[in-house]
């Protein structure tokens, strides 16, 4: 399923580029040859081609639908941070090594830096900004504050998104489980013991939806 989708993406990109190159060449002959040949030499057609290489993307982020045109190489994390200006999801490495970028895609925790945006077509994304209910914080957010599950706060959105999923997955039955299933989220400030306490507290108080 995913592979087919990838193929589609690649085919689409390829055909757009070929089309554009052909039309540029045709235009070069019929219109202003010198300038356009020069443009081609300077690879300006690449600049134009790139515009057409954006792919359509329909996603829902925190309940809000977006209809976008996105370059295929844009990660979900960079889409969120740089284009939608939802900077709550953090970039700590960009290589899937730290968990700071954790978001939920259709309810599952996902490293958004390792996910291409165009592969999320039709999916529902929840980021830290979408976790609370109006002014009411999510119980996990409350618990992080109460147990001081952070210092600098940079890993925190990722920890919280992971923690919510960790409980949902049934991986928060005991301390060892929590530690194991939260180990993809690095906290360099070392708030781990407090984070574990926060998660246990949420479990004790009835878990998460």
């Amino acid at each position, binding site marked *: 399923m995913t592979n087919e989708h990838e193929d589609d993406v690649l085919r689409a990109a390829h055909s757009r580029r070929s089309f554009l190159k052909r039309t540029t060449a045709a235009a070069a002959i019929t219109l202003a040859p010198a300038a356009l040949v020069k443009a081609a030499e300077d690879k300006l057609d690449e600049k134009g081609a790139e515009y057409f290489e954006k792919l359509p993307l329909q996603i829902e982020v925190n309940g809000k639908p977006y209809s976008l045109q996105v370059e295929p190489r844009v990660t979900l994390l960079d889409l969120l*941070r740089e284009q939608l*200006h939802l*900077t709550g999801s953090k970039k700590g490495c960009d290589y899937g090594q730290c968990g700071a970028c954790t978001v939920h895609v259709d309810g599952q925790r996902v490293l958004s830096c390792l996910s291409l945006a165009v592969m999320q077509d039709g999916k529902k994304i929840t980021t830290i900004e979408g976790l609370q209910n109006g002014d009411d914080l999510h119980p996990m*957010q409350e618990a992080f504050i109460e147990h001081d599950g952070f*210092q600098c706060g*940079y890993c925190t959105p990722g920890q919280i998104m992971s923690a919510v999923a960790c409980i949902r997955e049934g991986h928060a039955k005991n301390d060892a489980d929590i530690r194991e299933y939260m180990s993809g989220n690095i906290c360099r400030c*070392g708030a781990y013991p407090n984070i574990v306490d926060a998660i246990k507290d949420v479990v004790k108080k009835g878990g998460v939806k």
Partner: protein
Amino acid sequence: MDKLFFDTNAPMADLDRVDGRAKVTGAAKYAAEYDLPGMTYGVLAGSNITKGTITAIDTKGAEKAPGVIAVITHLNAPKIPGYDEGTNPAKGQTGGKGLRIFNDNIIRFNGQPIALVIADTFERATYAASLIKAQYNKEAPHTDLVDAMKTDKPLEGQRYNEVVRGEKDAWKGAPVKIESTYIMPIHVHNPMELHATTVRWDGDDKVTVWEKTQGVKSTQQSVMQAFKLEEKNVQVNAQYVGGGFGAALRTWPHAIAALMGAKKTGKPLKLVLTRPQMFTLVGYRPEAIQKIAIGANTDGRLMGMMHEAAAITSTYEAFNEGLVKMTLQLYACANVTTKYNIYQLDVSTPTWMRGPGEATGSFPLECGLDELSYALKMDPIELRLRNYAETDPENGKPYSSKFLKEAYELGKDKIDWKRRNPEPKSMKDGEWQVGYGMSTGLFGAFRGQANLAAKLYADGTLLLQSAVSDSGPGTATAMVQIASDAMGIPANKIRFELGDSSLPPGPTQGGSSTTSTLGAAVSNACVTLKKKLAEAAKKSPVFGGDVAVESLDFSKGELSLKGDDSKRLSYGDVIKGAALSSIDVIENAVPNPAMQKYSAYSYSVHFVRVKVHPLTGVVRIDKIVTAADAGKIVSYKTAESQMIGGVVGGLGGALMEEGVIDHRYGRWVNNNLADYHVPVHADVPHIEAYFVNKPDPVLNPVGSKGMGEIALIGFAAAVANAIYHATGKRIRQLPITPDKILEANSI
């Protein structure tokens, strides 16, 4: 509940972080998270070689790539006026000149930036940066400290002179002695937030910078010097800082590059380092090889100590820190010799990292004491108590406060030290070997200068402002707590504004001195506010003119007459009654001159219980107890987190962290978080942090001492000592990975 072992009259405050809500909702904005119209993205391309010169650089591919606006290299870099002065615009630290980015064609370390590519999107800038092609005249790299110690001469100068207290080599004549060499690799700060600079020039001589910095004022100064700008024209913002641990204490070359780039294009620019760049462009804790020798009488009294350290620095800066200082400071020992050597290698410049100096120096010292304790067949805590310094061994001064004995007691009790069988390799839990270890940490308790504005409004709210930044410890929370206690105003009615260089100048957050320095300013400002309130209350009929500050109580947001609390008035009514909109105070708090007569240190005592699996060499830290003498605890919750956080950092250094350079090429091998291991959830047990919580009566009016550094200092030694106790194997090289345990010989 019994965290407050030695209760002081004031209960330890337990305030939730004042910026907690912003941090758990994603509303907190860090340096790379400001959206400016027309934003451009800068990406640095780095050198593939370690040493040599660039002979040609081809930027055409990058320039023609889609979306690229400019490419800057040493060939076309705009002039940085501060470069010509010989002073280092990206502020030098302890010697030499910082890397003047794009100033010449010389390559000094692998990954040194050779080009800045600016494009209209991050992806386009990243791709275009990959198209930069350079040709080099390559020279053989020299990055190995072990080689350097054989072939090179260490740097000379006052900082590197041998220090001899008492008699040199006295340890050699002692009846009981140990002599060992300890090795510690490079440690890298790796805060979770990548270093980032966002720049907007508002004209030729006016700029706004959003920077990851531990000091907004020091960044402002660096930018002013580099670009020859006036203070009022350089605005530095750092509202939230995603960890620093020392890596954000100076203005690094990439920030200058970002300023340069934005100036050249006239567009706002955002530059975020990649994680691999975080290993070479923002410092690290230098690798060190250290010899320790300690001699004692049979009763355990120290007769002499020798500590000689060798560490690395870059070829262009002489970074140095107090590596051997702790050996001169911690114990009462008349005869101590130290020598500190640094070697210049083809690496980027190291910098201060949490517990700078002492974190490295405490490893041989506190393992050495442990070795000596076994040689003496004496309890390691007892050995330390026998050499307890009642006055500062360096200068004979009394301490402004010292509760290290209490911290030993506290920790010993909590870890249940009495269960420890002193015999190494004697304790078991199933197939696991069990061991107990301990160590001491010390760090100078400093206080600097701070300015602060305080405004008490007619609605009873209090605003405090200072140009500081908080990389995590919780500065605003602690300051709100201090003001709340002093003024009797609930914490939710007090706001502390920081992260803005236009506010009254505050200190840089480093050296565990923020609470001491800034807390003093808050405390003083509250005293002045009370005086002004009393003055304003003269206008009120309630007190009938009897408004000497001494005759008033200040609590629950009200003034009341001592002895007759029917006479009371809220702060707001006092202010309104005096026809004011607010009462304003500007405070400049300077260190207490009385401190000249005293020495001041914070202390930590770390206790760990480890389990070692003899067949696999796996180490599990089972229990951690850390007890600290950090003066009065201002904000318990954040203080506990800070201690825990330091311990986690120490645990990383003890068991897993190791920066690896392939010395054949001078190139980093593990410059990412998959290969450079830091502690994760599964590595970290429950950690118990305790505080003696006794105020220091001299250092500052709050009574606090520093905490950030001592939380980590000494921890690696406690782990190594526990592993020795469990296995009988003395591992003298960090990190203590299973292979080292399996290969080591048992006693």
